[in-house]
């Protein structure tokens, strides 16, 4: 029983960052119809941004998080502006190929920039775990899950309560009508992509210190983000949050009770099963954003 609780807690820590990744992807996928295979590379970018600020510059952790978010948003905006805007109106598959190209370019650029060796990212938290009754949790992991929760709430507020968020939701519901109402669609696309990429980078900066930073870390992150999006349903913010937590917990339980070698298979199997039985997502009522 204690062991089960421990797995659940560990799963929620992982799941919080998966949710961040998934929310970013579901916004991009849902609003722009872009199958963003480079999403995990923004996660990697965030981890390396954190590495640069923490290990090389020696700045505090929250600066590293901000640096990761800024780097993700900037590169996301640039990618959208340079590659996606000229291709608007092309088929979803054409754009998918371009994103596969971006994925390969970013990953190998990271490999060239940082080398293939995995790097550990230093963090200011004590390594001794906090004991809460039968549960043990490392202070870093606690920080990660709390920060992820704060970021998710902030993202939700941005989409629900701001003018920009309203414009995003309008674009998601009906692009033409939104454009007729004066929503600058092109700008909304750039902002959405930057926003989603920034969330992925934040997830990378948070999970980077828990694990290690290495150039191909984004591959699995992309696939986990896709699993989360498919679990939660396309463009479904709450679905992505729940889907992320669910995937994190399922992976922990799978690794704990079945085999740790197959931990990463949980997400793959989830994709296959959900597409088979509930292609609209586990929590689907209708396709929606917010």
């Amino acid at each position: 029983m204690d062991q089960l609780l421990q797995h659940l807690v560990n799963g929620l820590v992982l799941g919080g960052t998966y949710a961040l990744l998934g929310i970013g992807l579901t916004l991009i996928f849902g609003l722009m119809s872009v199958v963003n295979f480079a999403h995990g590379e923004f996660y990697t970018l965030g981890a390396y941004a954190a590495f640069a600020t923490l290990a090389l510059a020696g700045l505090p952790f929250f600066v590293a998080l901000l640096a990761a978010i800024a780097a993700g948003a900037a590169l996301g905006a640039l990618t959208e502006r340079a590659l996606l805007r000229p291709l608007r109106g092309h088929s979803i598959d054409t754009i998918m190929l371009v994103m596969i190209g971006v994925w390969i370019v970013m990953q190998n650029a990271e490999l060239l920039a940082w080398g293939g060796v995995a790097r550990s990212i230093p963090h200011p938290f004590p390594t001794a775990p906090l004991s809460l009754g039968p549960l043990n949790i490392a202070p870093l992991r606690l920080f990660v899950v709390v920060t992820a929760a704060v970021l998710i709430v902030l993202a939700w507020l941005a989409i629900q309560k701001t003018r920009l968020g309203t414009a995003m939701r309008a674009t998601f519901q009906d692009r033409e009508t939104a454009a007729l109402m004066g929503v600058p669609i092109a700008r909304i696309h750039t902002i959405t992509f930057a926003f989603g990429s920034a969330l992925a980078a934040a997830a990378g900066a948070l999970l980077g210190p828990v694990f290690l930073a290495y150039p191909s870390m984004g591959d699995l992150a992309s696939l986990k983000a896709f699993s989360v999006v498919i679990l939660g349903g396309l463009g479904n913010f709450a679905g992505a949050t729940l889907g992320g937590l669910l995937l994190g917990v399922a992976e922990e339980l799978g690794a704990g009770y079945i085999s740790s070698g197959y931990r990463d298979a949980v997400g793959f199997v989830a994709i296959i099963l959900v597409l088979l039985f509930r292609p609209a997502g586990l929590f689907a009522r209708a396709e929606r954003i917010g």
Partner: protein
Amino acid sequence: MIARAGLALGAVAAVTAPWWVANPYHLHVLIMAGVFTILALSLNLLLGYTGQLSLGHAAFFGIGAYTSALLSLPPLQWSFWLALPAAALASGLAGWGIGRLALKLRGAYFVLVTISFAGVISLVSINWMELTNGPLGLPGVPPPSLGPWTLRTKSAYWYLVLATAALAYFVCHRLVGSRIGRAFVALRENEPLAESVGIDGTRYLVLAAVISAAMAGVGGSLYAHYTRFVSPEVFLFSYTVTMVIMVIAGGQGTLAGPVVGALLFTALPEALREAMAWQWQMLAYGVILIVCVFFLPRGIVPAIVATTRRTDRAAGGPPEMRSGSVGLFKKRRGSDSRS
């Protein structure tokens, strides 16, 4: 005319290759180009003719390689000539399963299911120690033997690969020209219209997936018996990426495109080997993919064909036949909104 001359020249060059390729390493590169030709042709059936992108093609390649290796190693020790069809069968079965599963949804979902499938299979190959020997792989896969001869030399293997690649090309050629091939293209171009004249979309797409996967399995079997060693590396995503680049850059939805792409993208890295590190090559692949989408959306072969046709017409030749959009690169039909 030019195409025929090119084909004849290519065939002569290929058959005489062991005589004029003195360096055994260059012959090795040619053999790999032959294996990749089979893989690119197989991916092209799905990607180019039905418009469905499989990003798990390395899985079918790897299943073929493992099946063939496991069957020909002790305790079974099957002959290569039985292991090869068995590899095609195993990969084809996997293609059938994935097709049944994912081709109802198609598009991006098919891509995701194929990636996931490759991920699961790769994890199985690493973790199922009893069967696959895990990350250490399976050494000592025997070379094929034919009666009293064993195909140990590179030139002998080259002829085996060449014959198989030619067969694969012939199969694609016949298939594409048949009713089935026309159904594939019809589904790619306009699915509702194709279904309205009685083409069962899912059935034909599953068929395409089965044939494509089986061909990739043949490629895997040839690879296993050539390198005599199989490890989980056969499932590397970079294999899939290489196949996609070969098809897209060469010319998807054409028969010559994947062949040209396979030759180009096996020879090019070898030529650039001295000049740039492997990471730079992969980076260049990514850039080439993006550049192709923007500037050469139909690939090298169609671009060359279009140029020569234009000169023909200027010289009073036959008028150019404008084909419609090809493969993945079509404008979204109708309005911009989501359906």
